[in-house]
């Protein structure tokens, strides 16, 4: 039955080559933790992606309850954390996942650096990886404000003040981040939009490019 459905779809859409291309490519022994325990360092990238998936899923559920305005933001976080079934777990995953994803991304970057995997022909994938790093830091910075507690508010205020000291561009960066002259209602709405729409879109695009390039170029050989 399932086979018949698959064949019916495949006959019309020719989907087999798409997934077989992903499935069939050979993975060499030197990155396989089943053959060499030390090869777990080659799993950092995959684990980073795993945490990103956790972040996206937990974030989607948080967005069902979170309210991005200065009156209700704190109360809604308080509600979903303390009143809602499993709310503390979902927020916990998103909160700790933010730190863990930075850690895993850092470890992955170090692995790529110290194995010299960014060299010819993989230069572009390194650059894309660095851009992913910046986007993730941006996600961390914008997400930090959203609970709208004192810690969030004053950290963002300091962050914006630091950005404002950049010569020439500083004031523009500051007013872009704040959406006005102070860290306030506009800033929260703006950070929410950046955190939930703009930066994830950029992240997914960059991740897609990252994976296509890995598939094109293959994993770098053993040292």
């Amino acid at each position, binding site marked *: 039955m399932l086979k018949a459905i698959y064949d019916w779809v495949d006959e019309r859409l020719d989907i087999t080559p798409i997934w077989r291309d992903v499935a069939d490519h050979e993975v060499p*022994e030197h990155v396989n933790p089943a053959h060499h325990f030390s090869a777990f360092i080659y*799993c950092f990238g995959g684990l980073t992606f795993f945490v990103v998936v956790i972040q996206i899923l937990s974030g989607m559920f948080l967005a069902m309850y979170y309210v991005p305005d200065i009156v209700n933001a704190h109360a809604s976080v308080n509600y979903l954390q303390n009143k809602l079934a499993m709310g503390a777990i979902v927020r916990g995953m998103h909160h*700790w996942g933010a730190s863990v994803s930075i850690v895993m991304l850092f470890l992955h970057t170090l692995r790529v*650096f110290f194995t010299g995997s960014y060299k010819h022909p993989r230069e572009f994938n390194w650059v894309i990886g*660095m851009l992913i790093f910046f986007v993730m830091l941006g996600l961390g910075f914008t997400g930090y404000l959203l609970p709208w507690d004192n810690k969030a508010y004053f950290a963002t205020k300091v962050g914006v003040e630091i950005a404002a000291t950049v010569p020439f561009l500083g004031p523009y960066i500051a007013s872009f981040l704040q959406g006005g002259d102070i860290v306030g209602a506009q800033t929260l709405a703006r950070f929410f939009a950046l955190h939930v729409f703009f930066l994830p879109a950029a992240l997914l695009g960059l991740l897609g490019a990252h994976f296509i390039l890995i598939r094109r170029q293959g994993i770098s050989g053993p*040292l």
Partner: protein
Amino acid sequence: MEKKHEQVHYVGDSRVRVNREKMYPKDYSEFPGKTEAFLPDFLLKEWMVAVVFLVAFMTLVMTEKPPLGEIADPTNTSFLPVPDWYFLFIYELLKFNWAAGKFIVIGTLGLPGIAFTALLLVPWLDRSPERRPFKRPIATGIMLLVLVSIVVLTWSAETEHKEQLESAPGPTPENTKVIGQNEQGHKLYQQNACVKCHGEQLEGSNGPSLLGIGNRRSADYIIKVIDEGKGTMPAGMFQGSPQEKKILADWLVKQKQK
């Protein structure tokens, strides 16, 4: 370039040349050892690693509750701002004299700018075909140096923030009653300079509140702080004898909450 004389062929009606040389990934049969298909063989093994990771991660999630402070109050002047831990090293960098005030550009744009540009351009800065870390000591050395400085900066930012938190007058504890008001320790407390910064009722003013200090500190620790000072508190503020100092410390340890 012997191909110059060959007839040029195109794919279909496009301008893409047939047999244009491409950089195909190395065939893994050229690598020694056992290769396996990505799906499902290899992914299953990677999933095993992910399961171990997931167990550790969920343990963290279930034991440590994510923090949520008081609702943001822009008029709160005593709140000590601190960024998330992965920004701490930049935060700490900006405290150096040569990267602050007049030279803030060095801290905000100069050093991070150079570091991030260099990081972005790593493949073109380190162009040798050699991949082993020990065979390219400059790249490896610079990266290790950067790593160590990031760790040190983060560490000192964290300790500094903790110290500031301790010497700042924190929130008033629930029970504001001073324990043992008739004891000699209380008298010594009021006769010495302690009372000026830590308050008439131990509520704290310039210094932190000492209500509930007994929950956190031992008598030995208190004596050490009295002798050596701490944060903004200078050393040797206590004028009495060592015995009296001991009485004062013992009395302070009695200040417990709940």
